[in-house]
């Protein structure tokens, strides 16, 4: 700190700063639309979070709506959905993170041992396809499998086995499994390519030396690949933890087709916010839920990053 102060006091460097400011002025001006957009789209909504402590009225707007303390929150926790949506959001995220990471690393290791260039390229191309399509479309793909009357599972698999058709869109119990499979299906390609890119950057000499010493495949993976992957795993995990209270609205809204019978296992904070805001027009509750989501997510990221920085400074995100 002391050093920078001295530098700034130096009249010559200050002159240089002014010179650079002038030199870059066109670039600053050119970026103004971007800044304005970030302010409107990202920063104003952050300020809008104070609305969680107000009784929002569309006529009065953000500033003039009256304060009402913690009423929105007591109201939110008065409904049975508060507990359900927090439980669902957190549990799904933990399962997605755990299984997703393990599966992605597994696929990345498989990809890295495949020698044929064409095959490798083809696999990468194909496993990324689910990442290209919208969640609405994924909802249709799942429907083609699970539709009670026409679905492939009921007609093509269960019927030939003599098992009675299942009403998938009515029975909530199946959905934790279904949603986990759908999430893994659409995200594993993306994630494994990130890990794969890291793995192919490792020095081949480590593995060659290990093979000379008679290491098996499993030993090479557990003693070389996984330890070298650690920083990447940590960074991606911190990022995922930051979204611990967020859920993919599309996954939980489109894939179960917003079926009321499934709400107990498919309601997450985002679907709850949508339903209370747009369908019940209950702004207070949705504000309180959204507030907790934003703040808790931010706190989790800061805490994890602080812990990681203490344990292993190199791996921290910031």
């Amino acid at each position, binding site marked *: 700190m002391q050093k920078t102060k001295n530098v700034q006091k130096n009249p010559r460097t200050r002159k240089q700063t002014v010179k650079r400011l002038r030199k870059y002025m066109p670039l600053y001006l050119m970026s103004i639309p971007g800044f304005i957009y970030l302010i409107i789209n990202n920063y104003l909504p952050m300020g809008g979070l104070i609305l969680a402590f107000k009784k929002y009225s569309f006529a009065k707007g953000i500033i003039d709506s009256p304060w009402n303390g913690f009423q929105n929150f007591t109201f939110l926790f008065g409904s049975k959905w508060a507990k359900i949506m927090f439980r669902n959001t957190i549990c799904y995220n933990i399962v997605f993170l755990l299984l997703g990471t393990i599966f992605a690393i597994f696929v990345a290791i498989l990809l890295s041992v495949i020698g044929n260039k064409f095959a490798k390229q083809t696999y990468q191309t194909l496993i990324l396809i689910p990442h290209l399509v919208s969640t609405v479309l994924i909802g*249709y793909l799942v429907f083609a499998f699970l539709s009670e009357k026409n679905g492939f599972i009921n007609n093509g698999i269960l019927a030939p086995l003599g098992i009675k058709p299942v009403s998938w869109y009515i029975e909530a119990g199946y959905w934790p499994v279904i949603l986990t499979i759908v999430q893994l299906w659409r995200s594993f390609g993306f994630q494994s390519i990130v890990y794969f890119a890291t793995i192919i950057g490792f020095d081949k000499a480590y593995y060659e030396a290990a093979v000379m010493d008679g290491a098996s495949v499993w030993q090479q993976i557990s003693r070389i690949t996984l330890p070298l992957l650690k920083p990447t795993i940590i960074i991606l995990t911190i990022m995922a933890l930051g979204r611990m209270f967020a859920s993919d609205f599309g996954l939980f809204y489109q894939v179960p087709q917003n079926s009321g019978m499934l709400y107990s296992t498919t309601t997450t904070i985002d679907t709850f916010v949508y339903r209370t805001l747009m369908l019940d027009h209950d702004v207070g509750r949705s504000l309180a839920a959204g507030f907790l989501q934003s703040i808790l997510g931010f706190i989790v990221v800061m805490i994890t990053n602080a812990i990681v920085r203490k344990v292993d400074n190199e791996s921290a995100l910031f």
Partner: protein
Amino acid sequence: MVCTKKGFRIFANVVMIVLALCCVLPFILLISSSVTDEATLMKNGYAFIPEVLNFKAYQYLFQSFGGIVRAYGMTVIVTMIGTTINVCLTLSMGYLLSKQDLPGRGFISFFLFFTMLFSGGMVPSYIIWSQYMHVGDSIFALICPNLMLGAYNVILMRTYFTTNVPQEILEAAEMDSCSEIGKLFHISIPLSKPMISTVALFSALAYWNDWINGIYYLTRRKDLYTIQNVLNSMMNNVQFLKDNTLDAASAQMMSQIPTQGVRMAIAVISVVPILMIYPFFQKAFIKGIVIGGVKG
């Protein structure tokens, strides 16, 4: 890069083939359902190989269901305008941040990075865009909220500018008294075409696939719906009818609702352009994921 015996390599290939098939088969089921005739569909359900081929669903779509062409047009227009704006904004911010000796660079980086860590969430965002920016029920509702500029793309762009545009060329240009903007257009942009196309690709995909802006901000003007919104509302309508007993009024509505095959046909049409051009952009796509995932 594990060194292995042949056995493990075969195992890897087999698993990858199975996984690749898992990624492709659902689309085949969708396409085959859209070309199966209604009677077979009712009898056998959706199947991977259609027993009787029939393109009636598509015929109906393009002849009688006028909404589909309009929705398709909306998607194309919104994607083109949105992607153009996104690329321009991303380029200008990425270029600004690529200047290492820029006064205020630290603050600007933080200003950008912070939006990735913390967000106000959907409700305040909805209030700002609909009550203060008044984008509701207009084409701006589909273009403006959330999709016009993202910190992730800016970081990709900045990283590419700093690592792939040689400093020597920029300095040589400065000797020839080339302005900063001149350097952007004559040196940095031509040298960064791969990354610009990657950013454009990410943005175009986000616009093409977006339906959330539609359901939040287009509450009255259903005529502005994109293809994704049409898909979404059809899913819900059929669901709605299924949940309610059939009285005379809803039975009448039932006849207007596209039948099973038609719904699948619309789903196919919405995804075909992406799958068709995917082979051409898959290299740029993978590159973007790799750079973003490792360095972002």
